[in-house]
């Protein structure tokens, strides 16, 4: 049941517990209890909103930065990652397999701001060997949502 609740919430975090209960044939109190438990256990971390900033007057510049780390005794990736993810400019940090170690997403108001952040804050962190910055030019799809979906409902309005 948890999986089904999560699947529904993932698509619509604002849906009421009653509605989830109806959709899954559950008791509303049970749904509330499950969701509360998942919040407590940090299975559910946060209810975010997916925003297309392009359609607002807010400037958002996003960069994805490949970070190589020099592994050293007593300093694992976790410590380096923490020094990075504590910065509020950093939206996400993941440990990667392959030719670099940490994938870091940084947001800022301008390219300059982001570039400066990388040069002054990120690249200078101890154990960071190198950074490679890629600026995002356009978002097509995020969190499973296509930004400009042209596949509208093309069905006949009534059919047998």
């Amino acid at each position, binding site marked *: 049941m948890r999986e*089904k609740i999560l699947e*529904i919430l993932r698509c*619509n975090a604002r849906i009421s517990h009653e*509605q989830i209960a*109806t*959709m*899954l*044939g559950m008791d509303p109190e049970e749904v509330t209890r499950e969701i509360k438990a998942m919040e407590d256990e940090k299975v559910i971390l946060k209810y975010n909103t997916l925003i297309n900033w392009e359609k607002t007057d807010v400037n958002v510049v996003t960069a994805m930065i490949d970070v190589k780390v020099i592994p050293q005794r007593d300093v694992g990736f976790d410590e380096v990652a923490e020094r990075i993810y504590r910065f509020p400019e950093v939206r996400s940090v993941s440990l990667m397999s392959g030719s670099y170690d940490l994938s870091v997403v940084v947001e800022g108001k301008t390219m300059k701001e982001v570039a400066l952040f990388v040069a002054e804050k990120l690249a200078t962190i101890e154990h960071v060997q190198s950074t490679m910055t890629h600026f995002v030019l356009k978002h097509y799809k995020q969190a499973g949502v296509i930004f400009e979906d042209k*596949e509208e*409902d093309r*069905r*006949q*309005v*009534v*059919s*047998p």
Partner: protein
Amino acid sequence: MSNFNAERFIVSKLRSIPPSGIRKFFDLVANTKGVISLGVGEPDFVTPWHIREACVYSLEKGYTMYTSNWGMPELRQAVAGYLEERYGLSYSPENQLVITVGASEAVDLALRAVVNDGDEVIVPEPCYVSYKPCAVMAGGKVVSIPTKPENDFQLTAEQLEAAITEKSKVLVLCYPNNPTGAIMNRDELSAIARVVEKHDLLVIADEIYSELTYNGQHTSFASLPGMKERTILINGFSKSFAMTGWRIGFAAGHPDLIGAMVKIHQYTILCTPVTAQMAALEALKNGLEHVYRMKEQYNQRRRLLIKRLNDMGLDCFEPKGAFYAFPSVKRTGLDAETFCEELLKEEKVAVVPGNAFGAGGEGHIRISYAASINQIEEAMERMERFVARRYRELQVRAQA
């Protein structure tokens, strides 16, 4: 002035078939703006991407030719495997399966292959709109059996028994049912099978909604003891894989019956489009996961819709299959058509009057839940307002 009278050339059988009740309603809806339509008889999902992609790839590879009349051998093999795995049915891909242009063509082929002039074709109603016209065009005489809400819109053995004459030849079964959402389980179907056997009938089982069965597993009529040879099983990809526009389905059954159907098919259609066949092959190979995902979505919408209908005081038996609810609107004091027309006019919600699906459909409306949760919610808000107004009017009239 020309003395040409086109009407005179049209066969009389065709003239005896009334225009589609759905068509009439379609025009009404199409001419209204801002409508939420729960009148659609096909999935709101588009075909899963990997299936579309496989079709595009096949075109790039040059799959643009005719195939075997029966359908591509690989596809028939895949269909045979699917029927075995899902419904425990074993058909030879060699001579017991034909790939058709939708379940629709299979229905037509089956009826044309087995109905002689004057043979009686028994059709439980309400049902999908094409059985009757196809049976009539095949020369048959349609004997309708109205199924009842108190029987959960199932055909009963007694009703079937009562409809039998010496001319009875074919029984059309469609469960899960369009428009009622009714299903029949193994025991219930077994009772029908006994009557079928006793009177030596042939069954055309349109199981196009078999994958959309909630709370339990679908029983294929052909899987009942002794019924496989007596059944022309019809199924397809339209509903389960959201592939309506591809126009592909299939029929399975006794080699002689399928052979007879192929005879018509090869001279009228030649073969099902190869593009659709390539897509269907991909669907069966890698698409079942999507079928289950879509089914879960339908099930959630179904529960929501039924609750909303019950909350607004409309009697609705629980539909356990397909993607339709079929509530009674008698409590509003309106007949089905008036209900649908006034609902459309006042609240811009489209649903289909039950009488468009034949006897026993009067007093009911078909609501399709092949629509998003938000659309269903909004449509139900509107319908609730509409129904409340009608209840109030009835009350005022009763007091006057």
